[in-house]
């Protein structure tokens, strides 16, 4: 990667186009990993490949602050509200992939909410 110069950052932001139709974001701070977040991540990684869900991006993130329901993850699909699931075990993970990711049906199980809107996005809006 070439070193960036003045103005390159803005171009970088402008020129980005996501090729994905959604994302699964798994909370993986020390707390999330301790609660089993990394095995859930691996499960999603292998199962999503197998199910051919490659238009959905799988992502790690830091601690959402909801330590009472780790491991937790957010499913963001185009045209649907963002849904956060808490206490995700293997069974729930499979259910999320089969129902939510494949059929766009929210799983009526362990759904929780992000504690606030995405404020960071608003602060740094162009």
């Amino acid at each position, binding site marked *: 990667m070439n070193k960036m110069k003045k103005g390159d950052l803005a171009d970088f932001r402008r020129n980005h186009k996501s090729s994905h139709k959604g994302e699964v974001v798994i909370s993986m701070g020390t707390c999330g990993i301790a609660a089993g977040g990394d095995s859930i991540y691996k499960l999603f990684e292998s199962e999503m490949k197998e199910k051919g869900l490659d238009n959905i991006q799988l992502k*790690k993130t830091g*601690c959402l602050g909801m330590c009472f329901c780790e491991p937790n993850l957010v499913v963001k699909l185009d045209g649907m509200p963002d849904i956060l699931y808490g206490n995700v075990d293997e069974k729930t993970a499979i259910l999320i992939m089969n129902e939510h990711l494949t059929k766009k049906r929210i799983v009526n199980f362990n759904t929780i909410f992000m504690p606030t809107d995405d404020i960071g996005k608003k602060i740094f809006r162009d």
Partner: protein
Amino acid sequence: MDNQYIFVWEPDPSKSKAVYNYLVKKVNDRNLGDKVEVFKSTYIGLTSSRPIIRILPNDTIYKDFEQEDLGEIFEAISSGRKVNRFLCEFESKIAPVPEKDSHSKQFKIVLRNVGYLDPENIDEYIRRGGYKAMEKAIFQMKPEEIIKEVKESGLRGRGGAGFSTGLKWELTREEPGEEKYVICNADEGDPGAYMDRSVLEGDPHSVIEGMIIGGFAVGCKEGFIYIRAEYPLAIERLEKALASAREYGLLGKNILGSDFNFDIELRWGAGAFVCGEETALMASIEGRRGNPTPRPPFPSQSGLWKKPTFINNVETWANIAPIIEKGSSWFSSIGVGKSKGTKVFAVTGKVKNPGLIEVPMGTTLREIIYDISGGILGDKKFKAVQTGGPGGGVIPEKFLDMSVDYETLQSIGSMMGSGGLIVMDEDDCMVDVNKFYLQFSVDESCGKCSPCRIGGKQLLDTISKITAGNGDMKDVQKIRNISMAMQKASLCALGQTTPNPVLSALQYFENEYIEHITHKKCLTGKCRDLVQYSIIPEKCIGCGVCAMKCPVKCISGEKKKPHLIDGNKCVKCGECFASCKFSAIKRS
């Protein structure tokens, strides 16, 4: 109309799902199954003692309704209207800024990216507006202007003491000399606190960006992040973040093509609590033993390698980029009095939803504990909350409605500290809690100055004597005397604040100390030497549950006949007391 998603949260999951069941039935009766969906939610972003409904995609929240109002609410949902009298919107008395989420009492500035982006991917940080503030600072602002913005924003050190950040920068800038240093204090050690770790693990670039801006404003070429080795994941992610920032030309020589050079190095600490104190921290970076030294000279005059140095906490650094981006007046409109902005708290202890939260300064403890963290576990009675870690104090129930800011907390004998909030309920014994914190402070005392080394030990011994049932009323005065000596004469904040929890407990829970001393009783059963467990023969049905639970097998008896506890073998764990369904076990 879009599909409607109704999320229902009801306070106690074991009780009937009256609201959920009603709404599901309504949907089925009307055959609206493909338009309206109803879900059970386990946490809805806010908590209450009554059910809450949240409807997406419009994000409407209804609360404080009765069961019979549900019909009206349902009609409104299915026809796209709103029922205004049950709508929940928090008025913006604390943070009247447009970015505020009107559905939440939280406001995330420091944690703005944590949970949204991949911390190991610099591209995502840049796409979310990362390094925009740095670019603005380097190319559009003079160093004096940056310092002025930070000073006027009212940002104060988030590590505990609350010194004005902008002033610290200014003092360092004004010092003569070419060589100056920036330090990020990531040596977080309070029991129950993990704010800094979460920021470093979830959004390392926000700290790096803040430090670059600080380095540019003060005129430094080099910065250090002092982080404890107990945070391996944070170290790993920071290393990755630093490497990718260098690769992109955002760190190192000629940042973004300008003539400003700045680089950051990581230094690992071995996990000594006292190394969070700035002079000890700098000694540790230099490779010396982590002992504090007297101030003055302050680090801004003579810090790292005797050069002017300014040192800020992780959370303070994460606040810098938003201040530069949005301006000082934006930041200072959040908060109350002399405390501006937000504060991250790690809420732990006996609450239903422990976790990491960020609220505007001036939020009350009641809002934090009951509206965000769900209230006390098992609906028990609130007793106290410890703020500020081992150097803070306990806050009793009567102050729950006081606003959380630097001055208010200090006025009631506690302190802001770094942000640990440990909630205690009626089952916690204050004397026992004091003993725990003292043990921690005594272990962590570096031993350099005698008030802290000897005073702490004496305090601990006196309190241990009280919890063992050998206390004397004279001990209370002794505790007060030693405490005063420690506060006045200790070299650094560790020794000066060690007595704080004890003093505040003596102020607000003196009767508990007296109970321990004169009646030799611990009503909560936490001080084991003062507790006896026995079985009331009339109530015991001989089910044997307690005998099964007992870890040392000291309960014996025939089936269906009253059992007996062998007092000599009993370790007073209280398992039998908790497991007996017939209240046949007496604690005295």
